[in-house]
């Protein structure tokens, strides 16, 4: 299995790693069972994503797709961010090995989960945004696993 140079670059030098205090929205997706967890923090002012940070537990592709997804939405409007699909993330990384495509799906889902959280907190509706496919077991797993 080979990663593209861009994937390796974003894995070795991930952009936007970290947390945002009092974020406008946070989204966590994935679960420890499949070996990938992504958490994306958004700082939204007006309609614009001013800042974005992420934390990821996962393989090289998981880190790289998180990094690229955050790069793609930084400074964009919410409407523009809604257009960032897993395909866009993959293309920006010059592709992913077939077994790693799910990582890019996770990145898209993490982003949308953070936007959903923002929309919920502010009582607004974002066109085309669906609630995250959240399953409470995942959160249960996460907290339990850190006893």
């Amino acid at each position, binding site marked *: *299995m080979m990663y593209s140079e861009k994937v*390796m670059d974003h*894995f*070795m030098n*991930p952009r936007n*790693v970290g*947390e945002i205090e009092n974020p406008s929205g946070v989204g*966590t997706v994935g679960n*420890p*069972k*499949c*070996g*990938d*967890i*992504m*958490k994306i923090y958004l700082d939204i002012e007006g309609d614009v994503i001013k800042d974005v940070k*992420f*934390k*990821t*537990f*996962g*393989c*090289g*592709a*998981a*880190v790289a797709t998180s990094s690229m997804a955050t790069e793609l939405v930084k400074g964009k409007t919410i409407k523009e961010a809604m257009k960032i699909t897993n395909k866009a993330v993959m293309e920006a990384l010059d592709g992913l090995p077939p*077994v*790693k495509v*799910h990582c890019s799906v996770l990145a898209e889902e993490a982003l949308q989960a953070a936007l959903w959280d923002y929309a919920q907190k502010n009582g607004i509706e974002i066109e085309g945004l669906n609630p995250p496919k959240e399953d409470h077991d995942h959160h249960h*797993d*996460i*907290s339990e*696993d*850190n006893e």
Partner: protein
Amino acid sequence: MQKIYFDHAATTAMHPKVVEAMVPYFTENFGNPSSIYEIARKNKQALDEARDKIAKLLGADPREIYFTSGGTESDNWAIKGIANAYKEKGNHIITSAIEHHAVLHTCEYLESKGYEVTYLPVNEHGQVDPQDVLKAIKDNTILISIMYANNEIGTIQPIEEIGRIAREKGIVFHTDAVQAVGHIPIDVKKANVDLLSLSGHKFHGPKGVGVLYIRKGIKIKPLLHGGAQERGRRGGTENVPGIVGLAKALEIAVENMEENTQKMTELRDYIIEGIKSRIDHVKLNGHPTDRLPNNINFTFDFIEGESLLLLLDMKGIYASSGSACTSGSLDPSHVLLAIGLPHERAHGSLRITLGDENTKEEADYLLEVLPPIVQRLRDMSPLYEIYKKEQNLN
């Protein structure tokens, strides 16, 4: 940058003396051992010598040594061949949850053909309890297949005892000894085994060649039908250079075993202690003492194995992991799950397997670069973030 190979359980480099022994059989002695002219007779002789040598090193009779294309074929042949030969007697097979896929997937295939398979659990160190084997035996049990030593966590099984039980109950006993042969002393008689699989490339021999030891008197059906090679039990022109190389490699491995075992055990324990003392939230997987001299397997909490391997690779260190991402599936290692690790910890494992050429300097380099790599991945892990917040609350 230095390059350090710490993945000897995956494969090994060939010993120069092994290459040297093989070369003539690629060029001047190319004849087919089944032919009757002079250059072929030479090959027949080389084949016989290799068989004698291997038999002697394993405590077997030369007529009990059958050459195959490697560990996978040996395992497939042993299990399917016995299942086929004893199907009148029964259809139940006993194996363990931590076998290599060459055994597990073969058993699963047989299940699809109507056989019944019991997958015995292992304890936290990865050992099968011989009493569990005894309890699992039924009237229709025809085969017990338990590996000699595990490829991921290095745990050595109580083979003699399981073999004794199998012998008393009159059930055929196979062991996949691919990771054990050439690394720890093995005598097929003492081990009470009826069939034993081994592979050349795990002890500085060539790839694509292996052995199935079949004890005299054991009925087995062929896996590969064809010519009368291997006493009519395995068709196909013999891989003479490979067989000569395997015999030479095993001879060298056994000659140097005592010295290498001491050296590698010291280095192994040095690395184990070094990792434990330098990094928090780690766990050594496998048995503390009933363990292959070259195996180190750690779980690092909060991080994932493939990321760890990629960063080690950047530092010139080549190792392995039981994470899903390195297996090409979504599930992490079945071995780590079987010893009771939760999924996310099974994803965060690192396997280091030593060879006799590894040095203390290389171990020191690993111990120097590993802690910052683990910390770097933890710093970007949401699991570590949750853990730290919980610590702050307490």
